[in-house]
């Protein structure tokens, strides 16, 4: 393989480039990035960066001694994958031909329909998003956060610390029930009410109020909440539309095997845009976690360099962390309804706890609240237990 093009220049794309060089690839390397910026770290955007504690310089992902010997094409969007010619078409009209292609185009924030023209309504995914939101987080302002997921929760936490009046509205009856299960999702979401943030669950939003600028939201039950600023935190959409004209298999993301190989030879995918086969789930599963974008490109690149054969090394169980209200939440594994939950330390009512999810007696997931040391030990012990059909 003499040339590789990486489409995507965030954590997954950069990790793929580093892995290629670390694994001995010495051919031509091209990295295409949709944003103008060099690769930067996104987790601080809802926390330290949003709070104004750190600047943009601190977000840089590249080290001074990173010597990737790559050609960077930033501010360019891929528009088409031509599998016949093994090339990627860009929106500036150029085409990059390469022997191998790594798809790492990530995901974008899901927006509220029709909110584009309404000032004061934000999403959070990029530095530009964070700067725009930060400019409006003034002490005393009323912030309504739509969605009690991790982005929404972290923004609520940061805004509360900055002195805003914060309300989080969540359509589901139980917040975070998807990743954490009903019981522990509620335990984590309780951090909001303990810190003066209002949390309304089972409260789907009917629409946004205001003409040029948002003035509030209306809930499905008719209640209205006044707002000076609204953050929409309702998930992310994989950036895979540009692949639709190609024969590559897509579902909720680029469908991959357990080593990152796609349905097209010499094309692999990793990061938020990729749905890798997940043994614990039994089908392709898109993981949007930072650690997946850090670690899995190494596996995908090994697969690419080996001609599409995955060497069998399993991906680590999904892991994410979240910092809210000065508390550290860590979760690893995949939880399912029906898993048996035991508390190794503390209880659901305590300020700090460690909970283990078991299936068939085997630990499959672990949740820690301010328990980093014990969490790390349990994270290492997780096993992949397929869900019974």
């Amino acid at each position, binding site marked *: 393989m003499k040339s590789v093009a990486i489409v995507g220049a965030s954590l997954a794309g950069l*990790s793929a480039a*580093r892995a290629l060089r670390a694994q001995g690839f010495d051919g031509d390397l091209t990295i295409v990035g949709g944003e103008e910026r060099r690769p930067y*770290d996104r987790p*601080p955007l809802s926390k*330290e960066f949003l709070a104004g*504690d*750190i600047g943009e*310089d*601190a977000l840089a*992902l*590249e*080290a*001074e001694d990173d010597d990737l010997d790559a050609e960077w094409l930033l501010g360019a969007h891929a528009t088409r994958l031509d599998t016949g010619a093994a090339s990627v078409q860009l929106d500036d009209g150029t085409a990059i031909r390469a022997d191998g292609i790594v798809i790492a185009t990530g995901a974008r924030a899901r927006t509220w329909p029709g909110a584009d023209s309404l000032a004061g309504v934000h999403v959070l995914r990029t530095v530009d998003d964070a700067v725009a939101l930060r400019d409006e987080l003034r002490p005393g302002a009323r912030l309504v956060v739509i969605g009690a997921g991790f982005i929404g929760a972290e923004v609520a936490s940061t805004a509360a610390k900055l002195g805003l009046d914060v309300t989080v509205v969540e359509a589901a009856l139980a917040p975070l029930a998807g990743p954490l299960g009903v019981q522990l999702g509620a335990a984590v979401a309780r951090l909001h009410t303990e810190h003066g943030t209002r949390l309304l669950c089972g409260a789907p939003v009917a629409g946004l109020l205001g003409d040029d600028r948002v003035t509030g939201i209306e809930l499905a039950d008719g209640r209205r909440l006044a707002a000076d600023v609204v953050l929409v935190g309702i998930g992310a959409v994989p950036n895979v539309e540009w692949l639709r004209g190609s024969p590559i298999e897509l579902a909720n993301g680029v469908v991959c095997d357990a080593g990152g190989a796609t349905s097209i030879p010499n094309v692999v995918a990793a990061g938020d845009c990729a749905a890798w086969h997940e043994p614990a789930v039994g089908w392709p599963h898109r993981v949007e976690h*930072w*650690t997946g974008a*850090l*670690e899995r490109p190494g596996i995908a690149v090994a697969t690419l360099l080996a001609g599409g054969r995955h060497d069998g090394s399993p991906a680590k169980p999904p892991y994410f*962390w979240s910092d809210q209200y000065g508390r*550290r939440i*860590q979760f690893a594994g995949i939880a399912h309804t029906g898993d048996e939950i035991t508390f190794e330390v503390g209880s659901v009512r305590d300020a700090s706890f460690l909970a283990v999810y078991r299936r068939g007696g085997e630990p499959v997931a672990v949740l820690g609240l301010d328990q*980093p*040391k014990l*969490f*790390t*030990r349990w994270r*290492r012990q997780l096993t992949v237990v397929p869900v019974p059909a």
Partner: protein
Amino acid sequence: MLEICPLAALPRGEARRVEADPPIAVFHTDDGEVFAIDDTCTHQDASLADGWLEGCEIECPLHASRFNLRTGAVDAPPAKLPVRTHEVAIVDGVINVVLNDATPNLPPGLTTRAGGEAAQ
């Protein structure tokens, strides 16, 4: 020289965070060596004493950056800057640490209590 604890009080495979400015972490490896480094990960605020000790490496409990305990060098990202290492002396069965007076590589947003700026 900072007196830490009797060697016998820190079993192999264990770590101890020591309050200093900035805090340091002392490790007793499975091979019986004792190392001291700055406790705070250079990437983000996390205690390396809470991390996973394997051989002569410590993995940050938060983002899995790895540091070489002997040199402080980054063995795995996302960290970009090394941690400071401190000289260890075992005196009469007691772990002592000679603090390194180089500028620490603290993560963005953190400073020492003495007010030194985090090195970038």
